[in-house]
């Protein structure tokens, strides 16, 4: 099973194909943070898929601040429609975010609403110097003026087609459900 892409077709259900995307992201983040003071860099993964990706990247990047996880449930714009999930895991942002360069990691960038919520939550914890958005896949379909600085791969999905990251081990991309 493959998904159409501007570059090489994306192979699903294949952990190796995912490793290649992680490698692309790793290289891009590495050159991005090379300009920053090492202790000013904070990586934050969006719960849950974004956090799994962030865990993989964090291991290799030698960032000194602990890895953060962000649960945007309290910041969603559809709360009054869908209600609150009873098992929300709390966000864990172990360091102050004031004046930090944040690498915000998510798995699939689609409408941009999750990132909007994440940015609002981050600013309730402090005033970062910058936020860089890094995503595994950009599948288009944006409803808000949001873009990713670092992208594992851009993909084009057929109408009604879904793509999902399953994990944490093994991490793999699948169609529809895990």
């Amino acid at each position, binding site marked *: 099973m493959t998904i159409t892409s501007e570059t090489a077709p994306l192979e699903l259900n294949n952990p190796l194909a995912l490793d290649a995307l992680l490698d692309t992201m790793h290289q891009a983040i590495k050159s991005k943070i090379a300009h920053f003071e090492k202790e000013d860099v904070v990586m934050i993964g969006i719960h849950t898929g974004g956090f799994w990706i962030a865990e993989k990247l964090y291991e290799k990047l030698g960032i000194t601040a602990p890895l953060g996880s962000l649960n945007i449930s309290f*910041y969603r714009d559809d*709360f*009054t429609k869908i*209600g*609150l*999930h*009873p*098992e929300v895991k*709390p966000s864990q942002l172990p360091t102050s975010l004031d004046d930090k360069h944040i690498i915000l990691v998510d798995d699939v960038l689609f409408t941009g609403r999750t990132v909007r919520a994440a940015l609002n939550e981050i600013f*309730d914890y402090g005033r970062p110097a910058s936020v860089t958005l890094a995503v595994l896949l950009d599948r288009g379909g944006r409803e808000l003026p949001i873009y990713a600085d670092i992208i594992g791969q851009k993909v084009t999905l057929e109408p009604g087609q879904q793509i999902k990251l399953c994990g944490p081990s093994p991490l793999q991309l699948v169609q529809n459900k895990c």
Partner: protein
Amino acid sequence: MIAKNIQLDEQGRLKHFLSIEGFKRQHLVNILDAAEPFANVHEQAVKKVPLLRGKTIVNLFFEASTRTRTTFELAAKRLSADVLNINIITSATSKGESLLDMLHNLEAMHCDMFIVRHNQSGAAHLIAQHVSPHISVINAGDGCHSHPSQAMLDMFTIRRHKKEFANLTVVIVGDILHSRVARSQIHALNTLGVTEVRVVGPKTLIPTQIETLGVHVYHDMQTALVGADVIIMLRLQKERMQGALLPSENEYYHQYGLTEKKLSYAKSDAIVMHPGPINRGVEIASSIADGPQSVILEQVTNGIAIRMAVMSQTLGRSSGGNA
């Protein structure tokens, strides 16, 4: 046909929160789970989340309260709701306006939730039956009947210390007769499946037939405390006592006041709880209230998280309210 539980909507989601009775175990566990992440919100630089932005919540207190009213207010504010505190003594009800007329006026101001404390049992139920369908009602204590959010914050506190409810022995001490907190706690503890709930106090302060709620009754403190994991002390509610129910406060303290010696009969890792306000030297010794086994102030902090959970589940009509 079973009477409809007005606390749930047609889809079985939480709509009002009036009493613990009528909820299944999963409902209560959902509320406890939902409260966990809210317990961390105070760590943010901005101690707020935007869940209930644009909602108006009315604190309708017909009876004095400090802890409950302020923690409901703080919980609402940490969820970004607007809060209206209505002081009934100075409000129009003292000019002869009926309760339901006052409610309809508040509805006309487009409020979304009423938090009700009243000295009459059943007041919050009555209000819930008469409000417009979009409004949620939360019982913040009605007479001697029920105080469900207090019971849930106590369950939350117990779970944080003891993890599992099964295998626990919980002892509730003192004025059970006048305690809405005790009634709600007994229902919650049994619904959550603790091994044994004991109540202990003088015969005059234990309601007859309380055994039917699923508790063991004791009148001797030492026997009751043996093997206890959780000890819940209750306040002597002198304002509700009619007639001579007690010989004297001194005598009561001698028999049922929690002292170092009496505490030693419980398990060594037992926690001591009290819904507050505490009367030092009447139901509990200062050294215990301020001691290492006391979780009394934690209960206050946890009250904010639990109330945030209940408010967001009722106003968000959480799918998680399903059992």
